[in-house]
């Protein structure tokens, strides 16, 4: 098990960044998914979209050049690239619902082997609201869940989500610090494994049933 949480998150972010292609729209959720931006190769022109109404989001502003009217969906100050643009929320969710967003990357409270996702509510305990997550996971062409493999030692990849769902059968890929799973019509498949992990460790920390891909690769 990779115990260093910071390192674990870097492993996940770095791997996810490899998925993106030129001219694609990508929406990165708050928290761990935000780190993915740091790993996108400079030669790949990804349009980072944030649901509050920005396309072509750039990095955080240099000190002294902050503009309070340029933020991301987490409320953090950001910048816009020279080929970026702004739009209203209806247009922003038109892009999202209309499958113009190629990848949405977000965290999970639970995810299961059918691709169901629970990420927005712990009834009686934590009710932040779904924000834009339900639209994002239903609308984006590819939903990638980025998550630490376990939460306080308990598996997060389950046979069946127990918490209220964000959406049904939408997740295509799950990336943890231990490996990469694809959700297929044939069930969950482990396609990549981190060099410091092994299949026994992953089995012990995963509730879901999964197959191991014949051509299992090393996660990089």
């Amino acid at each position: 098990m990779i115990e260093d949480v910071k390192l674990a998150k870097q492993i996940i972010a770095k791997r996810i960044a490899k998925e993106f292609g030129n001219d694609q729209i990508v929406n990165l959720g708050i928290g761990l998914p935000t780190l993915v931006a740091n790993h996108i190769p400079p030669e790949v022109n990804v349009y980072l979209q944030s649901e509050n109404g920005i396309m072509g989001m750039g990095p955080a502003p240099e000190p002294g050049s902050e503009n309070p009217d340029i933020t991301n969906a987490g409320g953090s100050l950001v910048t816009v690239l020279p080929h970026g643009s702004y739009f209203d929320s209806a247009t922003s969710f038109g892009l999202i619902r209309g499958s113009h967003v190629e990848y949405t990357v977000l965290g999970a409270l639970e995810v299961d082997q059918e691709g169901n996702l629970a990420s927005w509510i712990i009834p009686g305990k934590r009710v932040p609201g779904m924000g834009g997550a339900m639209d994002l996971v239903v609308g984006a062409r590819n939903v990638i869940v980025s998550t630490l493999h376990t939460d306080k030692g308990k598996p997060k990849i389950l046979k069946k989500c127990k918490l209220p769902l964000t959406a049904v059968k939408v997740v295509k890929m799950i990336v943890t610090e231990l490996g990469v799973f694809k959700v297929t019509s044939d069930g969950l498949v482990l396609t990549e494994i981190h060099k410091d992990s092994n299949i026994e460790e992953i089995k012990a920390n995963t509730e879901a049933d999964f197959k191991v891909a014949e051509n299992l690769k090393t996660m990089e």
Partner: protein
Amino acid sequence: MFKKLISKEKFADLIKDDMVLMIGGFLNCGTPEALVDIIIQKKVKNLTIICNDTSFPDKGIGRLVAEKMVGKVITSHIGTNPETGKQMVDGSLKVDLVPQGTLIERIRAGGMGMGGFLTPTGVGTMVEEGKQKMTIDGREYLLELPLKADVSLIKGGSVDQAGNVIYNGTARNFNPIIAFAAETVVVEAEKLVEIGNLVPDHIVTPAPLVDFIYDPSQN
């Protein structure tokens, strides 16, 4: 012609107990804070607020919640304002949680004369409770209904004396859409300009949608 400028007092007169307000903004960005200030000074009661989120307790719409002026909120996110959650649990504030894309589209439907629309968002989740489900071309959708308000409060970037609005950056968010969906629309102008200074191709909210302009620098 073009007498849309409104004073602090006249704006305060517009806002009454039990009203339904739409307020622009996304967390800390694009909310007409000076208009919120005036509402707080007036101490109105039992507002219904339709908005993206309830912001922070000391910011934007969050301040109306913290001042206990809100009886009901229709919104997509309350996680950044613990006061909203507290009042929801103690029963003093009713909270309708709506997926963000559905929320803005319901407002658009209200403002643009649609009876509703079909969205795939929320199918198979708690969101579908009580809603009509329809299958179109083999895919399931929820029928979502329009939202309207008595007054919409919007934050404009550059506003001309006629009421045309261009927004700054992501301060745009809900603002241009809620401008369609209320009986009365008030814009708080970041920068008030003369007619002719805005390029017609760049204008986002056409002047006749705006009833009143509030210029904080003149008040």
